[in-house]
């Protein structure tokens, strides 16, 4: 990473432009895919296939009136969207988009910067990005906003633990903490010896570390506040959560930050678990597939596949209740990650062990631990059918058929004063 200053500036600008375009695309993509799932056309008026719809929406949003509530804490109110957007964009500085290419006559990596612990940068920016949501809710001076921001704070702290534990397994396996090096480490196939037959499995970590991959994907949806975990902005409970009091460009910033975060988490997942920019087939099939600018296709293809997963979840799953959501985070994801990391450490130690007996003890112990965790996982109380049959209709509670409706207290006095006339027939002739 010894680029001159002008090249870094060009790469940074390109990155910004690509991200904004990707956000515009992914809003359109989300609306079209959800529309297909709900059997309706979706946006199809502006531009080919409605592609310019999100651009039109963005322009419209920018020209709306910018309001500040009277009870708002002005400086923090202004600062919150800035924090959210800045942190969202910063995470992309370390994502490797491709191998070394020639750009303006210089050999350079398709990555803004990389250093020894660059994966931690993404985690740090996602931890700081929550400040935007939390401060937005607090500074608005509205109860809905405050509730939304409290939920955002609790949610991100809880799910960040599961996320970090999943990433830890990748650090463990690769013994690296740099995004570029992790992508290169996954290019090495894993040689497995199945009863004498040598099989070269792809080295992508979603195969080797499958439990971590599953936990990462779940935690990543929680971390980005997306359905079914979009509790901070649950529109049926909190209007729009932390963003209730925002309008115009400030609201648009939160929208932008949410989508950039989605893309960033998808990109991080692709980098850590799906081989980054590597082509999704063995090198020998098409050796030129992993050289030059072509890996951009594989990278963005994988990212868009993840965006589809996000949309798919939103289109099919109802929102979690808050206590269920917290229970999933603390009582399932975190303990499962811890057990898996313990087992992984034992297996890794066992594979390199010199003696046969040590090897068997470590690997066998790890397997026993995992199986025991599966079997003795404290489950819910099983359903017990009630002793006496339910009085309701077919076991379901229904209102009693002799339901007597209390009269409207407002018209009670009027009813007493008037003589009863058949109301229904009389009114229909009007």
């Amino acid at each position: 990473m010894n680029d001159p200053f002008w090249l870094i500036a060009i790469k940074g600008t390109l990155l910004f432009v690509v991200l904004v375009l990707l956000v515009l695309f992914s809003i359109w993509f989300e609306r079209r895919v959800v529309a297909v799932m709900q059997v309706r056309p979706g946006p199809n008026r502006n531009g080919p296939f409605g592609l310019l719809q999100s651009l039109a929406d963005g322009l419209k949003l920018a020209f709306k009136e910018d309001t500040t509530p009277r009870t708002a804490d002005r400086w923090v109110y202004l600062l919150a969207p800035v924090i959210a957007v800045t942190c969202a964009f910063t995470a992309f500085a370390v994502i490797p988009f491709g191998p070394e290419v020639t750009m303006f006559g210089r050999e350079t990596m398709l990555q803004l910067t990389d250093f020894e612990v660059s994966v931690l940068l993404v985690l740090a920016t996602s931890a700081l990005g929550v400040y935007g949501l939390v401060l937005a809710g607090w500074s608005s001076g509205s109860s809905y906003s405050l509730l939304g921001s409290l939920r955002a704070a609790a949610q991100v702290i809880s799910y960040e633990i599961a996320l970090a534990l999943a990433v830890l397994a990748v650090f463990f396996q690769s013994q690296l903490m740099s995004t570029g090096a992790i992508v290169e480490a996954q290019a090495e196939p894993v040689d497995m010896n199945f009863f004498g037959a040598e099989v070269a499995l792809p080295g992508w970590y979603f195969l080797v570390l499958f439990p971590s991959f599953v936990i990462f994907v779940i935690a990543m949806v929680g971390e980005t506040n997306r359905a079914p975990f979009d509790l901070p902005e649950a529109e049926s409970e909190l209007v729009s959560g932390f963003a209730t009091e925002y309008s115009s460009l400030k609201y648009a910033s939160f929208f932008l930050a949410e989508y950039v975060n989605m893309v960033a988490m998808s990109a991080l997942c692709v980098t850590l678990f799906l081989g980054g920019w590597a082509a999704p087939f063995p090198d020998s099939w098409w050796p030129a597939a992993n050289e030059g600018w072509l890996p951009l296709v594989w990278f963005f293809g994988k990212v868009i596949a993840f965006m589809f997963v996000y949309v798919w979840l939103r289109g099919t799953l109802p929102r979690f209740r808050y206590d269920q959501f917290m229970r999933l985070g603390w009582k399932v994801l975190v303990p499962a990650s811890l057990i898996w990391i313990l087992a992984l450490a034992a297996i890794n130690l066992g594979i390199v062990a010199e003696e046969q007996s040590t090897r068997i003890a470590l690997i066998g112990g790890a397997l026993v631990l995992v199986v025991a965790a599966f079997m003795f996982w404290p489950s819910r109380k099983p359903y017990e059918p009630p002793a006496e049959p339910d009085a309701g209709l077919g076991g379901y509670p229904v209102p009693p058929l002799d339901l007597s409706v209390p009269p409207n207290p407002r018209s009670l006095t009027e009813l007493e004063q008037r003589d009863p006339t058949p109301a229904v027939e009389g009114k229909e002739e009007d």
Partner: protein
Amino acid sequence: MIADLAQSVSTGEAVAFWILAPLALIGAVGLVMARSAIHGALMLALTMICLAVFYIMQSAPFLGFVQIMVYTGAIMMLFLFVLMLFGRDSRDSMFETLRGQRFFAAVLAIGLVGLLAAGLGHAVTGLTIADGPPTATGAAAGDSNVAAIAESLFTTYIFPFEVVSGVLTVAAVGALMFAHVARKGAARGQKEASRERFAPGNYPGPRPGPGVFATSDSTATPALLPDGSIAGESLSEHVPARELTAAETAPKHTEGKDLHR
């Protein structure tokens, strides 16, 4: 000696230092001066981020990012979480609960400043300027920052490390013990909640939301067609028809212009 140090750093490092050091100081002073607790917490977060960047500049990227993730991301966020629950208008009480506490606080503060200055001066004197970035020393350190930290954490300082983790676990479990409240009776399931909801004497449906101009939320109130007449399908055969006054059935003139009359 300070002048020598200033000459040894690169331009980029000097620029970053002169931007971030005032910011860190503003954050530290602002933490003490801020009237609102949230503003104080934000100032502290600013100082912590500046310190993290200093760590990264001093070739300790792992420490810097862990500082951001753990202190700024998790611990300050928990502080904010608690402070937000206190309400926006809460201010510090300036009432002295201990007699003469300001005097003793001043004496102790001066003493602390003296101690810190002496300790820092003792540590800094006789330092030499190294060529290039510092490299880790030790048996298996190599040139990796993370490996060097892990090496010293899990060999030299393993006992303090274990003690600290034990103390932290005890503290967390103790906090849980204090905060834990035993549930009175069994948890109410969905079935019980539903039965209670439809029990005689309880209104089963949701109340109309604020801002809904309904004359009644009764299930017996019939729906009205656009011309004001009653929609027959909206009447249940099990529920007796309710009296509506002429004022209630009349069109509400909500459109501004009534076309039906």
